[in-house]
């Protein structure tokens, strides 16, 4: 780890001020992604702005037909929140499978979504549920937010404040874990919200993406059988020592079937 300044602002405004004053400052939430990068000296921020003391980023609440989850909500809180479990059980279930106990007690939804690791869990829920990402400046639709590997619509210094999830009629998630890292090798989040079907695929490609053929098939017939015949093209998917693009393409269909099964 290189030396850096450490700040712990008490308000969103102060955090934004610190970050906008210094392009090499980095926000930190749970630190479960940033700290390993710092320890490996892959990252050399001038200062680290700890968001954990900012009340505006906390809390999980039901607001009418939406579930609003603050950026600082830890995976463990999402997994065990009665509001989440009642409104979107698939999201709570997803959170309960991220990393391990230590990671779930520190990692946050805001950190994960802002980071947009292609092998992360949450991005598929955000995209599959057509959620809205709320920042200190604006509201961003999920379709516009994720822009490929580790890239989002967030501008430098812009902070993720909360995520607003519409409440679906049905939603389900299934993933195959990478055998070594246990991140996602291929995952599918399926949801029917206000009659509209969305299928978001994570892990398999360089970023989370929607599977249009599956969405069409499920709109016609909401059942595992409907996607069983939909082949995900291997083109453009990840291939590495853990599995070829063809294997991941195959897993996309398998996970989509299982996600629908789970959604009921």
């Amino acid at each position, binding site marked *: 780890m290189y030396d850096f300044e450490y700040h712990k602002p008490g308000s969103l405004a102060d955090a934004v001020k610190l970050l906008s004053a210094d392009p090499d400052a980095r926000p930190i939430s749970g630190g479960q992604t940033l700290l390993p990068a710092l320890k490996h000296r892959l990252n050399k921020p001038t200062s680290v702005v700890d968001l954990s003391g900012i009340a505006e980023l906390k809390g999980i609440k039901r607001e009418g037909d939406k579930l609003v989850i603050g950026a600082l909500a830890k995976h463990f809180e999402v997994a065990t929140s009665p509001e989440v479990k009642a409104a979107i059980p698939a999201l709570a279930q997803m959170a309960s499978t991220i990393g391990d106990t230590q990671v779930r007690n520190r990692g946050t939804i805001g950190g994960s979504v802002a980071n947009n690791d292609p092998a992360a869990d949450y991005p598929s829920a955000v995209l599959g549920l057509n959620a809205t990402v709320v920042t200190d400046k604006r509201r961003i639709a999920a379709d516009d937010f994720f822009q490929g590997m580790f890239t989002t619509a967030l501008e430098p210094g812009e902070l993720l404040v909360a995520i607003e999830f519409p409440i679906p009629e049905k939603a389900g998630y299934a993933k195959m874990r990478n*055998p070594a*890292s246990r991140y996602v090798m291929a995952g599918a989040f399926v949801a029917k919200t206000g009659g509209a079907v969305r299928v978001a695929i994570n892990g398999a490609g360089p970023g989370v993406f929607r599977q249009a053929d599956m969405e069409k098939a499920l709109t016609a017939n909401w059942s595992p059988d409907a996607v069983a015949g939909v082949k995900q093209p291997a083109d453009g998917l990840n291939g590495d020592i*853990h599995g070829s693009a063809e294997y991941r393409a195959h897993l996309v269909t398998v996970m989509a079937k299982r996600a629908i099964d789970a959604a009921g």
Partner: protein
Amino acid sequence: MNVVTPFEGIGASVKRKEDLRFLSGRGQYTDDINRPGQTYAAILRSPHAHARIASIDTVAAAAMPGVVAVFTGADMPDLGGIPCGWQIHNKDGSPMAEPMHPVLAVGKVRFVGDAVAAVIAETRAQAKDAAEAIAVEYEVLPAVATLEAALAPGAAQVHDDVAGNVCYDWHIGDKAINEAGFAKAAKVVEFELVNNRLVPNAMEPRAAIGDYDPTTEDYTLYTTSQNPHVIRLLMGAFVLHLPEHKLRVVAPDVGGGFGSKIFHYAEEAIVTWAAGRVKRPVKWTAERTESFITDAHGRDHVTKARLALDANGKFLALHVQTLANMGAYLSTFATSVPTYLYATLLAGVYATPSVYAEVKAVFTNTVPVDAYRGAGRPEATFLLERLVDVAAAETGMDRVEIRRRNFIPADAFPYQTPVALQYDSGDYQATLNQALEAAGWAGFEARRAEAKARGRLRGIGISTYVEACGIAPSAVVGSLGARAGLYEVGTIRVHPTGSVTVLTGTHSHGQGHETTFAQLVTDRLGVPLAQVDVVHGDTAKIPFGMGTYGSRSLAVGGSAMVKAMDKIVAKAKRIAAHLMEASVEDVEFDRGTFRVAGTDKTKSWAEIALTAYVPHNYPIEELEPGLDETAFYDPKNFTYPGGCHICEVEIEPETGITTVVNFTAVDDVGRVINPMIVEGQVQGGVCQGIGQALLESCVYDSEGQLVSASFMDYQMPRANDLPMVSVATHTTLCTHNPLGVKGCGEVGAIGSPPAVINAVVDALKEYGVRHIEMPATAAKIWGIINASRPAMAAE
């Protein structure tokens, strides 16, 4: 009567004495030790697998904050190379190629991770900062990352003085007899397979602290070692040219070794030498990435084999050709692993009349490869037990029957194999029968059918194995090229009140010696376990020792203790005879009580101990006071644990994921001192074997970069990857050591991988699979399923 209650002697599953310390966080590992005035070393490592070093500029680094010194290979002209402990000879009798392994690279780097420079600084972070400021100009050379690449015509030379990258081309067995065996064959089975490279990944990374006292010129090295005396010998005599009395090596608590902490590593020499230069203690602790790219890796063989059978399925002859990867330099015992620890095991549990093996050891631009739990014997067992399954399939014989028909019978021991070893004892039918029974072999087809109904492919696999551990005797290994003796040393120090301290030259890094060895004393001398302490891991305390590896500690180290106890008892009897005014021949000793035979005259252990140290009434003319004896024990032979492992798996065809649903191990480890510890050792070994078979994939790219250099990419087995392992023992005693023990540390890792792969192949049998290379990952299995339409479906 002085009966020990509760029973704590041989055969008792007493709890481990060391666990209170470990589980309450009071272990003292090398990195827990801090010496006054300590500095920290960071090692600058090569990012290239193969490159010429054009220049190294350390000026900027030396001026960085906190930097005490910066060293490169050029600063160490007088140091020797890191030595190899075993010289192998080629088929033509010439010695193997033994290229120089400098402590810090000179001229060239030969693997990613090769040590280029060392920075000594006030803090770890300052040392790392300065290491980054060293400017090295590399001229990158083509690299050879695999055996195939290294042996290709025109391949890059890892060492300029080693033609064709071949370290040695060795053989064992009689070639003419072997060919005659093949000439008689009714059937020849040919087979090729890989034994996959593994990264050891002990939980505690390697660490070393060098300390130097300028007033006495004494050096101390604290290090994560399985054998401190061996390190003192290798580093002192060959590298730093320090005499033993000026060099103390301490290996305190060590958090797992699995072989990787046997070897003498460059960092040990760097910190010790640098401490002398900067006149302050120097500490180095590996980061996990450094562990991946500098701890000696394991296995990495490519083998072609042919098995000749007669019309009745009896094995006639086995011919094996193996390529073994040495990595970039010869690690301490690297050369012995694919020869005397592998090819000598190729008879296995079978009465094959002829075995002929040829082994070529090859340099590549990769991390050095050396012994890893099992060392050579897992490679031999995997080859044999896969080959036997393939032979069964291709001759239409039952997998169990072909084994039974070829076993060395229980009444044939001692049994001389055609590849040098003489097995002293074993009963392979018995361990097989017990395992078949325990695993419910007979009922398997019903379980397969039930799984099929659930959409799962279920398979069962068997492995019957023997291994050789407690490597010995010194005279024989010496004639085969070992540059060390393989005896062990034990001191039994009886204190005036009768409690005992044991000094052993072996080293415990997870095995539970502090308990097992104390049980030997309790059993023999009748001293309660709480009054026996075992000390190891310090050359200043222990007379001498060869350390712990190859499952030798109990068989060799325990036997040394027994010999020392014999001396203690003999002397104690003379003291007792004097006190009871009897003749020494009439004094009997049984667990703590001395008795004049046939009388009720007795003396207790404590009385004799006290008399030995307070010799008021004592035969001082004939006997020295004190009760403290040392013995050196050189074994007559290896010991030969063996047994049968049965694995049952289920495969989910949709994903290719394999789940080990049952694992049964029945092992003959000789006499069992502590059944609980044996069970733990076998379970741990089996888990490592399952890791090798299904999970652990060590991958180099063609440039020699280790792609699987972190836990993000290298899959260690975790609790939820593993079944409950059912462990049982079936004992035949070792015939040549006083305890009848054989060794249990490696059997799990040796017997299990072929059982797992045999089960996977069995599960996939409807797909016409002959073999699947380890690790049989989900992706690989799905690839097989996807590529081949089931034979059944095609019908």
